Structure formats: C-alpha cells, structure tokens
C-alpha cells in the first residue's frame, strides 16, 4: 500500500520542480493563505490522476499483486498524506516570506481540499479517460459559480438555517464541519471502491 502512495512521487519527480515555484507564485501574489493551502494540496494527487486516467496504468496496477480495494485506498490515503506534506511545505514557505497565517487557514484549506477530493475522485472512475479533466474543470467552475447565489439564497430566505449556524459556538461549528467532511470523504471512498471493483480494463 505504501508503495502505491510512494509511486506518485516517483512518477512526478520532474514535475515536483514546478511545485515550489507554483506555491511561491500564490504566496507572492498575496493569495489568501487558506486558498494557497488548498491549491498546494491539490497539486500532487490530481497530477497523479492524470496518469491513472490511462487504461495502461490500470492494467499494470491490476496485474501486480494488489487488490482493487488497495488501489483505491492508496488514492484516498495518499491524498491525505500529500496534503499534509504540502501544508508543511507551504507553511515553511509562508514563514520564509513573513506572511502570517492562522490554524484556521490550515483547517479551512485542508477541509476544502478533502471536500474537493471527495467530490471529484469518484468522477475519475465514472467518465471515460480524456473527458475527466474537462468534467472536473467544468464542475469546479459551476460549483464556484453556483455557490455564491446558493449561499445568499439561503441567508435571505432560510433564516432558520443561518440563525442555527450563528447560534453555534465556534468549537462546535468546527467539530460539525470536520464531521461532515469526514463523512463525505468516507462515502466518496466507498463509492469509488464499488465503481472500481466493477471496472473492466
């Protein structure tokens, strides 16, 4: 399992040189720290998926002594591992550039990343290779486009919900959000496993 996670680094060895300037770009441009954490985390796992889109990669992995459940598990665990590494690196870079950030930024960044992973990973196994990147890109744009109006609709019309959130204490709000992210992540993991088990190569 660990080998499967390590594989992403071996494959992307060369692209990793882009990783540092990529983070630095966001830091120097003065992007929100939470947003910087998010994009830094996305870099390795989604780049790796670019490779896994190919049928050959799946033929190789499934011909080696791995179970399909392990291949999926390595994706989901790998995303967390690389997220932690990316957050570490980004924090160092932020320190180096004297930019301040709080624990909240880290939590929001990683929370959004895990949500994004949970929503997109199953898509990689549903759509045909070649379409996936487009689908993910479009869904990302659609989501960010819809999110604004939806939130304002909720705050204007469903005052009950907003009042409920406002009444929550900060710790319980965080706890709740964490719990929801974990549940969605686990669900996504389960769905991906079921889809992948049925796949034909």
């Amino acid at each position, binding site marked *: 399992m660990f*080998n499967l996670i*390590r*594989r992403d680094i*071996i*494959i992307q*060895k*060369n692209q990793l040189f882009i990783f540092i300037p990529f983070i630095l770009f966001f830091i120097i441009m003065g992007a929100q720290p939470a947003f910087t954490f998010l994009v830094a985390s996305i870099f390795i796992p989604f780049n790796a998926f670019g*490779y896994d889109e190919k049928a*050959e*990669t799946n*033929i*190789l992995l*499934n*011909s*080696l*002594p*791995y*179970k399909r459940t392990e291949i999926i598990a390595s994706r989901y665990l790998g995303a967390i591992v690389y997220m932690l590494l990316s957050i570490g690196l980004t924090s160092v870079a932020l320190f180096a550039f004297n930019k301040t950030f709080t624990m909240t930024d880290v939590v929001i960044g990683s929370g959004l990343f895990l949500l994004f992973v949970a929503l997109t990973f199953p898509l990689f196994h549903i759509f045909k290779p070649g379409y996936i990147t487009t689908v993910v890109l479009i869904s990302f744009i659609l989501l960010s486009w819809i999110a604004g109006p939806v939130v304002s609709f909720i705050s204007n019309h469903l005052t009950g919900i907003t009042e409920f959130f406002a009444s929550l204490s900060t710790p319980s709000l965080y706890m709740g959000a964490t719990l929801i992210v974990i549940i969605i992540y686990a669900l996504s993991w389960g769905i991906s496993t079921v889809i992948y088990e049925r796949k*034909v*190569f």
Partner: protein
Amino acid sequence: MENVVELINVSKKFKGFSIKNIDLHVKQGFVTGFIGANGAGKSTTIKMMMNLLRPDAGEVKLFGLDYQTNEKDIKERIGFVYDSNVFFEGLNLKDIKRIVAPAYRRWDDTLFHQYVEKFELPLNKSIKTFSKGMQMKASLAIALSHHAELIIMDEPTAGLDPIFRRELLGLLQELMLDGTRTIFFSTHITTDLDRIADYIAFIQRGELVFSKSIHDVTEDYALVKGRIDLLDRDTEKAFVHVHRAPTGFEALTDNTTEVKEIFGDTVVMERASLEDIMYYFKGGIHHV
C-alpha cells in the same frame, strides 16, 4: 498432471462479441500456445486469467485458487507481458523497477540486473524511446525477476523482427528447463509455436475449438487432397471444411483414422500446419 490455469465453463458477453462456455486447462511445466485470428477472444481470455475482466458465468482458477479470496497470492506467482507497453511512458527502467519491485515479495534484484545486462537495456532512458523489441525485453525482464511460476504473455512476438523473435523463443525454452515453470502465450504467428509449444489451445469467434498436445494435433489433423467425385454428403462429414477446385478438392480433417477408413489410398494426406488448421476452420463449416 496439475493444471495451473483452469477456466471452467467461462462466458463473457460484450456488445457484438462474446466468449462462450470456455473450458480451458493449462498444464504445469509446459508451454501452451494460444492461437486464434485477430478478434477471436484471445486477449479477453487472458484478461480473465489476470482478473482484469470478470466472467459473467463460470469459474477462473489459478494454481487451484480463486481470485475472490486469493487475488494477491495468485498474482504474486504470475509474470505478465502484454502486447502494448503498460509501463509509464515517461519513466526510465530504473524508476519502473522502483514502482514494480516492492509489489512482489519475491522480487530478485540481482536477477533483474542479470536480465538487464543480458538484454542490453539502458536503465536511464525513458521507456518511450525504446523500440518495440526493447520494450518487450523490458517487460520480460520485469516479468521474470520475481520467480514467477506462470508466465502469461499476450502476443509477445507481434511486431518483433524475426531475429529477436527467435531469440525470445530461445529464451523461453531456457526458462522451461527447470521444469516447474509454465508458459501460456497467445500469438497469431503460428510458426513460433511449432518451435516451442507443447500444447495448443485454439479459439475462434469466442469458442474454444480445441486444446490438445501438439502431438495430438499432428496426429488428428491432416490435409486431404483427392478427386471431386470422391465427395458426397456422407464422405464430406469427415472434414472440417472442404475447398473445391476443378482439379480436385483439398480439405482439413480432424480425424485421420476415419479418413483412412473411408478413402483408403484414393486420397493424399499431408500434415496440416497450425496455419492450415486456422485457415480451414475460418471457412466456418463445423461438423460435430
């Protein structure tokens, strides 16, 4: 004699193509050649052996184990070579080894380097710069370096020049010397098999026509030539398919004794090559 691979009544349906009730046994310690025209179902069958595809019905067993409970143990003992490159194109052989090697408990680095030297493979050049023959050698080096008991190859000789094809066949023969290994490989270049195969499995339109030792194939099948007037509805039954020409007929039989009984010395019988057999079966008239 133990069977390393057993397909029992296996069926798989696709749009416009299906594998129908295949019963195939691959014997331990022998080379089995898997022949059939393009699109006959060779790759599909191999994919089911590798658990890349799951059959709709029937059982697939390797080393007497099934994939549901023993997937890792089974794959640990298989070396695979596919007709196209399945390794990450941009990587060099060293990195590919780094990815593949830890997957196997019995990976043997010394052995791997022996093969790399023997095949004269560059470790630091990316796989996509390799010629077809070199890619094949690279896959082979990886397939052979974890002491696999069963080597499954899908069209390993396709697209290779004749010299390397011979080298490859020589190497496979060498591998068989220790007596415990089993090789199963598909091909449509039947002359490869005359050299090394012990058993032949022949698939056509998703159905297994036969699976026999090469000795039995040469005993049972023959090309028969004779005058047209010898043929009638009864005598024709002895043949798989008959070609008629004004000068006489030429036909394939799968029962040489019967032909001898019916025709005696009035016809000429010749040894049928695997290519002849495939060609006449393609004619499509089955008699059962």
